[in-house]
Structure formats: structure tokens, C-alpha cells
């Protein structure tokens, strides 16, 4: 399979001496939906900045579809579409003009640009707003406009830096559908997000970056398998005074109130086993939900481990 992105020993030290990237290496396969996660200031946006040439790297090699970004500037840019974190279009221009102008920067003939502009504005539910000034759009519409603009030249690789930040849940879900469809049609997507549920839902592979280093780089499935325990909130159909004795079962629980309790279950115990435990103890369950997203638990544990290791060093 072709490699969409190959990053080797990438370093970036800003003029003020801040080391944003400390030698990261990463590969993303063509057609992948890849999550790049990390806390604020971890180096995600710097990595994206280097890929999009807005940030000058201090060292290392970056290749997009096998072409070095330093020696094949124009070819690599043609393959790349970027949706940045911050709104970065002119607030005074019309929606259609913003997309048409971007097409012009890619050297697209006007007739093709108009066709693509309509295609993507319709797909992203912005066609009715095409003659509106961009400053009059809602936050969600502005984000969708940035996606339409990034897609107008139909890049093979799309990088989305927190595309759903501040977007309501309904819109977020429709954007997930759109991105899934786009990925299925062959576009490689790299996503950074603070919504771990989003990464878990959409991405097949994941890298976690912290303090300028990659602390995890694996498939989403393998990562989730590594979760050794999970915590649930159990809602009760019949109130209880106190929690029963769980015997040797690999669980620990805390009563929240007479109508609910929190239970942490080892990965070795199946859901059927868990429900048998409840039945054997006459616990009537009305609802069961994860206390937190599974990926969130793993994300935090990986960061804790990585920070522990660097403290030991």
C-alpha cells in the first residue's frame, strides 16, 4: 500500500527556543482515516503546519505520497487540502468567491472551478448561502465553508485540525457522515480533535503526541483492546440500601445513591458475566452506560505513562 505521509525525525524549535517537536516519526497509509491526538500544546498543530508548509521545520524529512515536501513543493501541495483550527478566510467576501478564489490558486479553469464550487457547497449545505458575506455565517457554517474550500481541488489527502470544535452535536454527526463518505471514496484523512468519541467513531489508526513526542502509534482496535478495565454507571430499576458482596468477581463498585452505582469491571469479565453477577444478586438494572469514553481512558493512561517515563529519565 502507498504511504500518504511519511515523517522521519521531525523537529521544530521556534525562534523563542520552544521545542514543539522533538523528533517525531510517523507513517499514514493511503486511504487511512488517521487520528492525531494530544493535549493542548502537544505539537499537533505544529505537525500540521509543517505538512502544509506554514511552519518551517528545524529538521527531519517529510514526504507526501512519496514526494519530499522540500524538493517537490508544488506537487505535494496539489495533493494536500488543509482545514485549519482557526477561521482563516476573509470575513468580507462572499461564500462562493472564497471557494472560487481557492480553486483559482490551484490553477483550475473557471468552468471546472464553478462546477466543483457548486458540488461542495451543495454537499456541505452551503449552496443557499453562496452569495452571503462569510461574516454572516454561523460558526458551524464557517467550519463547513473551510472544508468546502479545502476540497475544491479534490486533494488525495485532507488534514482536519479540530474541524468540529464548537459545532453542535447534530451538525457534528452530519460532518462525521460526510467525512466517512469522503474517506470511503478514497481520500486519506488526518484528523486532530479533542472529542475522543469522534476519533473512536471515525478513525482506524491513531497516534498520540505529547510534549513533541509520539507516545502511542497503533490501530484503534489494538489500542482499545489494551483497555484492561472499564467503568460503568448502573441505573437501578429497584432502589438498594447498600452494595452486595461481589465475591471473587473482578469488579469494584461504589454506591452513588439508592438508584445508581458506579462499577469498574476488568476486561476479563464479559458483559454477560457482568449481567449474571447482577442477576445472582437480585440487582434490577434499568440502564447501563460508560462513565467515560473508552478512548479517553486510554488517552489519559498513555499520557500518564509517557510523563512518568520522562520524569524517570
Amino acid at each position, binding site marked *: 500500500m502507498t504511504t500518504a505521509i511519511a515523517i522521519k525525525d521531525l523537529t521544530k524549535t521556534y525562534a523563542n527556543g520552544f521545542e514543539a517537536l522533538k523528533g517525531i516519526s510517523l507513517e499514514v497509509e493511503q486511504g487511512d482515516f488517521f487520528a492525531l491526538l494530544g493535549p493542548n500544546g502537544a505539537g499537533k498543530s505544529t505537525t500540521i503546519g509543517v505538512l502544509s508548509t506554514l511552519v518551517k521545520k528545524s529538521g527531519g524529512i517529510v514526504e507526501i505520497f512519496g514526494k519530499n515536501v522540500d524538493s517537490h513543493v*508544488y506537487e505535494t501541495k496539489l495533493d494536500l487540502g488543509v482545514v485549519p483550527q482557526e477561521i482563516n478566510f476573509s470575513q468580507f467576501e462572499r461564500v462562493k468567491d472564497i471557494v472560487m478564489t481557492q480553486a483559482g490558486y490551484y490553477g483550475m479553469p473557471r468552468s471546472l472551478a464553478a462546477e466543483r464550487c457548486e458540488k461542495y457547497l451543495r454537499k456541505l449545505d452551503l449552496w443557499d448561502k453562496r452569495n452571503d458575506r462569510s461574516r454572516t455565517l454561523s460558526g458551524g457554517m464557517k467550519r463547513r465553508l473551510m472544508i468546502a474550500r479545502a476540497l475544491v481541488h479534490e486533494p488525495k489527502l485532507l488534514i482536519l485540525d479540530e474541524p468540529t470544535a464548537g459545532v453542535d452535536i447534530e451538525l457534528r454527526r452530519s460532518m462525521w457522515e460526510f467525512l466517512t463518505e469522503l474517506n470511503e471514496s478514497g481520500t486519506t484523512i488526518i484528523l486532530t480533535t479533542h472529542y475522543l468519541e469522534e476519533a473512536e467513531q471515525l478513525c482506524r489508526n491513531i497516534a498520540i503526541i505529547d510534549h513533541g513526542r509520539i507516545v502511542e502509534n497503533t490501530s484503534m482496535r489494538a489500542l482499545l483492546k489494551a483497555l484492561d478495565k472499564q467503568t460503568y454507571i448502573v441505573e437501578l430499576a429497584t432502589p438498594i440500601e447498600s452494595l452486595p458482596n461481589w465475591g471473587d468477581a473482578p469488579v469494584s463498585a461504589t454506591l452513588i445513591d439508592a438508584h445508581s452505582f458506579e462499577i469498574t469491571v476488568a476486561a476479563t469479565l464479559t458483559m454477560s458475566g457482568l449481567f449474571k453477577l447482577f442477576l445472582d444478586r437480585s440487582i434490577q438494572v434499568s440502564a447501563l452506560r460508560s462513565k467515560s469514553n473508552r478512548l479517553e481512558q486510554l488517552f489519559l493512561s498513555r499520557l500518564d505513562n509517557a510523563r512518568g517515563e520522562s520524569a524517570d529519565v
Partner: protein
Amino acid sequence: MFKNHKYIAFETIVIKEVRRFTRIWLQTLVPPAITISLYFVIFGNLVGSRIGDMGGFDYMEFIIPGLIMMAVIQNSYSNVVSSFFSHKFQRSVEEVLVSPVPNSIILCGFIVGGMVRGLLVGAIVTGMALFFVDLQIQHPLITITVILLTATVFSLAGFINALFANSFDDISIIPTFVLTPLIYLGGVFYSSALLPPFWQSVSALNPIFYMVNTFRYGFLGVSDVPIGAAFFILILFSVVLFGSCLWLLNRGTGLRS
């Protein structure tokens, strides 16, 4: 890669720039026309009628080339500096930076945008001047060449200012404290023959003095400076400023961290 992609990218930048300043024509095209008209009325008509001849011409006739030149200089410069800095400020410059447009095309696009505004304002001012004087052009080729070169030089200078600017204050410092004094001392309103020898030598260090005089030569056929030297200076400034802009763009100065 599309056929003619560089030309399409260049055309896109120019259209965007022209669309920008024509959209806000009340801020960009009307004020210079009003200001220069006031110069015509006050200096040319009211004060000028008491001054009499200047350099062998009616005072109004004498100042018109300088006033047209002043409008072109100020508007070429301010179009590029304000537009490019606004792109930086709103981060919309990233649109063009992430795309495969070569830096030379980005530069040419913004420069031509600035030139178009400068020349359009120059044309408006010339039109206003026709209400006051029956303008004759003695050397059309020189007039056109010098106005094009001047618009280029000041568009390039505005681009450099925009690259280094970090705030809106930074884009008004040069026009206020450097450009305006140089224009006023560049012989727009007087002939250098009126100055004492020392100040004539000082004027010779002012590049705008050469531009104004060469432009006046195109209209009236008289000049305080050798025309060849003036063209040499204009071409030299154009080449050096273009090279500097391109070098700064390639380094990513003010644009890429």
C-alpha cells in the same frame, strides 16, 4: 497540474485585489479624488493665481503632473500594504500559502493589484484636472513608462512594509513619516530652481523628486533632472525591491513561523 495554472493563479490574485478595493470604493477611490480636487482649487486656483508662473508655466499647469503622481504613489503603496496586512491579520493569507502558487506569482499578483488601484486613482485625478486645465502631453511614452514604473516601485515598497508589519500602526508609520514628507519635498509644488544650492543637493537624494520631474517632463517637456538618470533610478529601485520582496517571501518573513 492544470494547463496555464500559473497564469490562472496570477489572474485570481489580481481579480481578488481589484474586487477588494472596488467593493470599498468609498474608502479607496473617492477620498483621493476629493483631496486632489481640493489641491487643484486651493493651491492651483486660489493661491496659484497669485503665484504666477512656475518654471515657465501657469502654476496650475505646473503642479498637475506632481499631484497625479502623488495620488499614484500613495494609492499604489496603501493598496498593497493594507490589503496584504489584512490578509495576514485575518490569516486568509494562509489560503494562498498552502496552495501551489509560486512566490513570484503571489508577489506579481499583489503588485499588479496595487498598480491597478494607483493608476485608476491617477486616471480619476487626471479627469478632475481636465476641469481646470487643458492638459497636453508632450511625451506620451515617457509619461506612461514613468507612471507604470512608479506604481510598481511603491507597490513593492508597500509589500515589504506589509511583510514586516505586526499591527495596523505599523502600516501607517511609513506613509505618514516617510512617504508624505518625501512627496511634499519631491518638487510637486515647486521647481527646485527656487531652492538654495544646499537644498537642491538634498532634493537630489529624494527618489520621488526624480519621479515627479520625469512625469512632469512627459506632460510639459521641462524637467529639473536628467531624464536618463531618473529612469535609471526607477529601474534600479524596481529591480532591487522586487528581488528583496521575493527573497523575503522565500524566507517566509512575517508569514511562516
